[in-house]
């Protein structure tokens, strides 16, 4: 795509005018970019503003490629939209997407002055550009290496690693410093020691003396003997475990009566295992008498 776009857009006429294809590309993208940039200025939500900026940056990448700068077009997409704007979005999520703008002016009339200043800036800069008498554009065919069968990235590399080699080193140092700076700035000193597994075990063993347990509290008897979790589980000795019912249910007075279950257990322990007694005490209500009768015989 890049090569075809370059082929469409690259050549300039003798008067230094861009080709019709490039003009169409420009007039399609330029309004989109201006509208999107206004989106940054006017959008209430920060995420919408970020999306507007991403639109502008991708459109810029197209314009770079059209302007004989395919390397910068790719770098624009990779670095700006791929890295920088994603970083912005991450920070937006970190800081809170709904951290909306306050509309209170701390300096009175500042917003109006700023808008007037912005319009004035457009007027001045565009005025300078429009009234300037530039030389006839030369185009980048030769500089991009069309005469010696090389390409834009190769020619750029020759300049960056030749003429600007020292600047490149400095920029590398800058990047390393920036990465370290970000690490230092976002580093948080730990105020209390980390509570690791060993510390938790020791705390539990210590709490054993004051009536704590080593194991987690047992679950209520939902699955074992009932279909609601207000029923206490039975311990290994058959006694209902009060701790197995949720504390909140007890506070609300919604737990099942543990005494009732304790009474049943007592009855069983008192010799209620005999078949007839059990049936007399709890008559089979589901109408399925076949099995018990067979058991009797």
């Amino acid at each position, binding site marked *: 795509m890049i090569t075809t776009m370059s082929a469409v857009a690259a050549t300039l006429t003798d008067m230094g005018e861009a080709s019709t294809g490039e003009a169409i590309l420009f007039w399609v993208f330029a309004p989109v970019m201006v509208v999107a940039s206004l989106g940054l200025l006017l959008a209430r939500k920060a995420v919408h503003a970020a999306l507007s900026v991403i639109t502008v940056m991708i459109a810029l990448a197209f314009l770079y490629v059209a302007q004989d700068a395919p390397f910068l077009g790719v770098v624009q997409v990779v670095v700006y939209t791929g890295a920088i704007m994603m970083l*912005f979005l991450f920070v937006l999520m*970190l800081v809170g997407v709904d*951290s*909306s703008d306050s509309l209170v002016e701390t300096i009175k009339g500042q917003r109006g002055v700023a808008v007037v200043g912005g319009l004035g800036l457009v007027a001045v800069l565009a005025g300078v*550009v429009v009234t300037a008498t530039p030389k006839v554009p030369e185009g980048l065919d030769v500089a991009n290496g069309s005469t010696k069968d090389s390409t834009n990235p190769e020619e750029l590399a020759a*300049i960056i690693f030749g003429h600007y080699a020292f600047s490149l080193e400095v920029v590398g140092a800058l990047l390393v410093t920036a990465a370290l700076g970000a690490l230092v700035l976002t580093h948080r000193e730990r105020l209390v020691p980390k509570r690791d597994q060993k510390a938790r075990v020791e705390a539990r063993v210590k709490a054993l003396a004051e009536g704590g347990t080593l194991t987690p509290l047992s679950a209520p008897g939902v699955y074992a003997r009932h279909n609601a979790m207000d029923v206490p589980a039975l311990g290994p000795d058959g006694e209902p475990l009060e701790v197995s019912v949720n504390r909140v249910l007890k506070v609300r007075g919604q737990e099942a009566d543990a005494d009732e279950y304790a009474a049943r257990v007592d009855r069983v322990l008192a010799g209620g295992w005999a078949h007839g007694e059990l049936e007399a005490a709890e008559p089979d209500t589901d109408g399925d008498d076949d099995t018990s009768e067979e058991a009797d015989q």
Partner: protein
Amino acid sequence: MNLMNYLVLSTILFSVGATTVLVRRNAIIAFMGVEMMLNATNLALVTFARINGNLHGQVLAFFVMVVAAAEVVVGLAIIVAIYRTRRSASIDDVNLLKDVRDPA
């Protein structure tokens, strides 16, 4: 089409970015305005490179991109650090250096 159109577009983007920095109170949005200004200058630099027929403008745009990346990393880290201590991403809330005495 005259190449000056690119420069006019660049000035418009630059001005909108500058206005954003001045108007918006959310630190992240203001920061995006700075990015927009840098991008606008990059467009101008690429256009200048094409007008002058050599690649030094593109190299300069490349360096601008690298510096912008470094700047974003540190800037966002500062915003996050301020947010952690003050629970706010608003520029107006960063006023510890403000003189709060009665102006009388």
